[in-house]
């Protein structure tokens, strides 16, 4: 069956529970947020800095105002969770051994999963440290290496063993590893920058992106001049250009075949590069590196007519007579990466016509039974999180193989929840997106220091509260629905459809829970409301004389002070408008001295509508209390005015009650 997922989760290669961790941030439970992030991704800290966030591009909140700042929130969560995290659980040792070649995100993820499954996972890495491109290629101003260190330490703590400085193919062959281990996974990535067989490109002044970045990242000073041309239109080209700027190159120009609007680099990478003074010449292809006495003097380029052919294949054509020569003293090639196939030496593995490893992209297998692959070497270039996903998959397949399971880890079908209907989007209160604060371009381009400063706590909590909780909305229990129309009549977004019985289309439901508060058959449940959690919280009073405060979950920053007061139990709801009369009675029954309904200030509630209904519900509750001999004054609807501090008002009421 196809699983319906929020589009953020569906777009994420590892299906991160975005909604879940955003909700945890909103209720200030940062450790839980971190746990949820890490549950599907052993590189939470790295990804918090560098993930190109396909989740964000798919966020349904875009239909209201702007998508959630998801990566900024992930960054906040990993920072806020701090140290002292939960150690990973590990299965009993199985006695099986797996060698993983390459300690990039793909290989390390596979090793980490296998270790937790109880297998002995040993990673062979030719570098002295672990991390693959995270270690060698990503500019340090975008990825401080402490982040990598943090993630790697946790991976090793789960039992992964690492043998560094071992070049597989040279120091040990895959054939040998296959003898020694029960299975082998090849995750060698794409570690070679591609060259160009054009005149002048053999000049030693022509550098390759990965060599250049590696040197710069390890504190070296690559030999660049004052006028640098970077060839390539992708993210790597942007990293190279911005690194060159930071190394002090006077002029840095990016030249690429693609026109500006179809450049493969992410838009923000291009914009940040431009802001740092990088120039762009899109739509031109390299023809020749011009030299004088062995020194580079310029790059001859030709105007591009089209990049793709009619079938959409990369097949550039040029304007026959339009050339442009750009003066420069350094050329850096960032036109893509390929595999370094030296690991194949004497391996017995089949290769294709181009000399690359023959693989099955679905089952990640090779020509040798027991030898698997993962990461970019099989998937091709992509975001790191795709390599992580492939690492998970490889581990699952290897685990099946080791356990003799014929049925390989099956692919689960997923589908994203559809777009927000316009009539609903119109009614959702607007909330501005909290952007990642960054250092100004003029300042950050001077050095390699990280320039993304991170959201502060209040901004993060506010931003997390913008999540629409897609898919956590109202569910109808068919046998309880009386088709009474109440839900349709009370829903502020006009979502429920009654045809025989009520149905709440998942695309529209905002998961506020107002309908559930009024459904006479108790036929509506919402994950977002967590009725069971509410009733058990109230029951936890156990007769203790205290104050019960019903409040909107998390977003009500002011209530932080209240929950820390003694004798106060804050029960959080999706919105106070979802408050149910039974809960008020139940609070009193469990000994509450008073009950507070913490309303939102005008315009602060994240949901539209429902105010009048809540007022009537409180009115009814007060009348009922009076007729059963309880003072209605023990129920307080706290609606702070502009400038009033709800915590103060509640504390005052607490004093009156106790």
């Amino acid at each position, binding site marked *: 069956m196809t699983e319906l997922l929020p589009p953020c989760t569906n777009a994420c290669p590892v299906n991160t529970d975005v909604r879940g961790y955003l909700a945890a941030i909103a209720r200030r439970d940062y450790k839980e947020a971190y746990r949820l992030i890490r549950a599907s991704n052993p590189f939470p800290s790295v990804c918090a800095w560098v993930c190109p966030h396909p989740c964000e591009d798919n966020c349904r909140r875009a239909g209201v105002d702007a998508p959630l700042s998801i990566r900024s929130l992930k960054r906040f969560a990993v920072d806020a969770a701090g140290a002292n995290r939960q150690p990973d659980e590990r299965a009993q040792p199985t006695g099986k051994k797996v060698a993983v070649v390459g300690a990039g995100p793909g290989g390390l993820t596979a090793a980490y999963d296998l270790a937790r499954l109880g297998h002995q996972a040993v990673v062979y890495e030719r570098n002295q440290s672990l991390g693959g491109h995270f270690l060698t290629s990503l500019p340090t101003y975008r990825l401080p290496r402490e982040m990598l260190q943090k993630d790697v330490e946790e991976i090793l703590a789960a039992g992964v063993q690492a043998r560094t400085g071992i070049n597989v193919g040279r120091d040990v062959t895959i054939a040998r590893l296959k003898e020694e281990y029960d299975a082998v996974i090849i995750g060698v990535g794409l570690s070679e920058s591609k060259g160009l067989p054009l005149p002048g490109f053999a000049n030693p002044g022509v550098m390759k992106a990965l060599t250049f970045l590696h040197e710069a990242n390890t504190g070296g000073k690559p030999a660049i001049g004052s006028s640098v041309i970077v060839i390539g239109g992708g993210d790597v080209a942007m990293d190279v250009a911005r690194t060159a700027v930071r190394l002090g190159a006077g002029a840095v120009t990016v030249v690429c075949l693609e026109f500006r609007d179809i450049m493969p680099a992410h838009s923000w990478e291009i914009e940040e590069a431009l802001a740092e003074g990088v120039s762009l010449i899109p739509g031109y292809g390299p023809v020749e590196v011009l030299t004088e006495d062995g020194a580079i003097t310029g790059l001859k380029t030709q105007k591009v007519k089209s990049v793709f052919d009619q079938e959409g294949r990369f097949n550039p054509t040029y304007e026959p007579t339009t050339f442009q020569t750009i003066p420069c003293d350094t050329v850096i090639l960032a036109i893509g990466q390929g595999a370094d196939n030296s690991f194949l030496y004497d391996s017995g593995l089949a290769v294709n016509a181009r000399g690359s490893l023959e693989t099955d992209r679905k089952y990640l297998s090779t020509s040798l039974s027991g030898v698997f692959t993962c990461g970019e070497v099989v998937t091709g270039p992509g975001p790191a999180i795709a390599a992580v996903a492939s690492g998970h998959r490889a581990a699952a397949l290897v685990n099946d193989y080791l356990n003799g399971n014929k049925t390989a880890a099956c692919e689960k079908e997923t589908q994203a929840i559809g777009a927000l209907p316009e009539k609903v989007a119109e009614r959702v209160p607007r909330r501005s997106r909290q952007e990642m604060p960054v250092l100004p371009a003029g300042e950050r381009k001077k050095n390699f220091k990280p320039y993304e400063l991170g959201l502060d706590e209040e901004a993060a909590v506010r931003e997390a509260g913008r999540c629409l909780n897609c898919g956590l909305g109202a569910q109808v229990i068919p046998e*309880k629905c*009386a*088709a*009474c*129309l*109440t839900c349709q*009549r*009370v829903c502020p977004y006009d979502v429920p459809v009654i045809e025989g019985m009520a149905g709440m289309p998942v695309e529209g439901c905002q998961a506020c829970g107002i309908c559930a508060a*009024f*459904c*006479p*058959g*108790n036929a509506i449940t919402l994950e977002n409301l967590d009725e069971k959690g509410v009733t058990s919280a109230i029951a936890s009073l156990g007769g203790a004389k205290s104050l019960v405060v019903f409040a909107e979950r998390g977003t009500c920053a002011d209530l932080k002070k209240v929950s820390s007061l003694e004798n106060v139990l804050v029960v959080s709801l999706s919105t106070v408008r979802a408050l*149910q*009369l*039974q809960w008020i*009675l*139940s609070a*009193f*029954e469990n000994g509450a001295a008073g009950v507070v309904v913490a309303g939102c200030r005008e315009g602060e509630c994240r949901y539209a509508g429902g105010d009048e209904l809540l007022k009537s519900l409180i009115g009814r509750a007060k009348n*009922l209390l009076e*007729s*059963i*001999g*309880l003072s209605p004054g023990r129920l307080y609807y706290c609606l702070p005015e502009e400038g009033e501090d709800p915590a103060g008002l509640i504390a005052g009421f607490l004093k009156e009650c106790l």
Partner: protein
Amino acid sequence: MIIAQQKNIQDIAAMVGDCKKVLLAGCGGCVTVCLSGGEKETEILAAALRLMKKQAGQPLATVTYTATRQCEPEFIPPMDELVRDVDAVISLACGVGVQYLAERYKDKWIVPAMDTMFAGGATGFGSWEEKCGLCGDCVLHRTGGICPVIRCSKSIMNGPCGGSQHGKCEISKEVDCAWQLIYDRMKALGRLSELTVIQPPKDWSKARDGGPRRILREDLIKG
């Protein structure tokens, strides 16, 4: 459908004043739809009664059960177990349900939580109106789809009476004169002339006046 509303909680409590444990029986039919006696209201009433009795120092235990409908004998037996060890049953069904319970549980004290009001329907969220007099001899085809039996305060068959003022009934400014509504509707339908036909006195024996009513469908009754 049948529209009912809950009695005052003090009156309900008084009916079970000497009980230690009661069953509150909700109904999933009309009273769920008219928001007065479904599962939610049943639980609210149970909690309120417990609180009230606790306040008064006479704790009351409650159990709750919501039947699919209390007006069908087959839906009652699932309550048997629960009924066994309670001192009384408070039914949140209409009067029909209360009687079905009383019939099945002969030795139990069965009391109504509701005042059963009328046959009618909702006019919006939280408002209901009486629409049908249950007279057993429908005349709506002669009165433009508006029931004179129940919506005319005097149940006049050849209205309006002299108490019709500016479209309202003389009993209250809040009450529309049914015969004004009938007149307007028939006029709009171009059937005003039909109102000139004098209606003969209504055969009230088909209504309540003939004593308790019963329908026996020979075609459906087995054997």
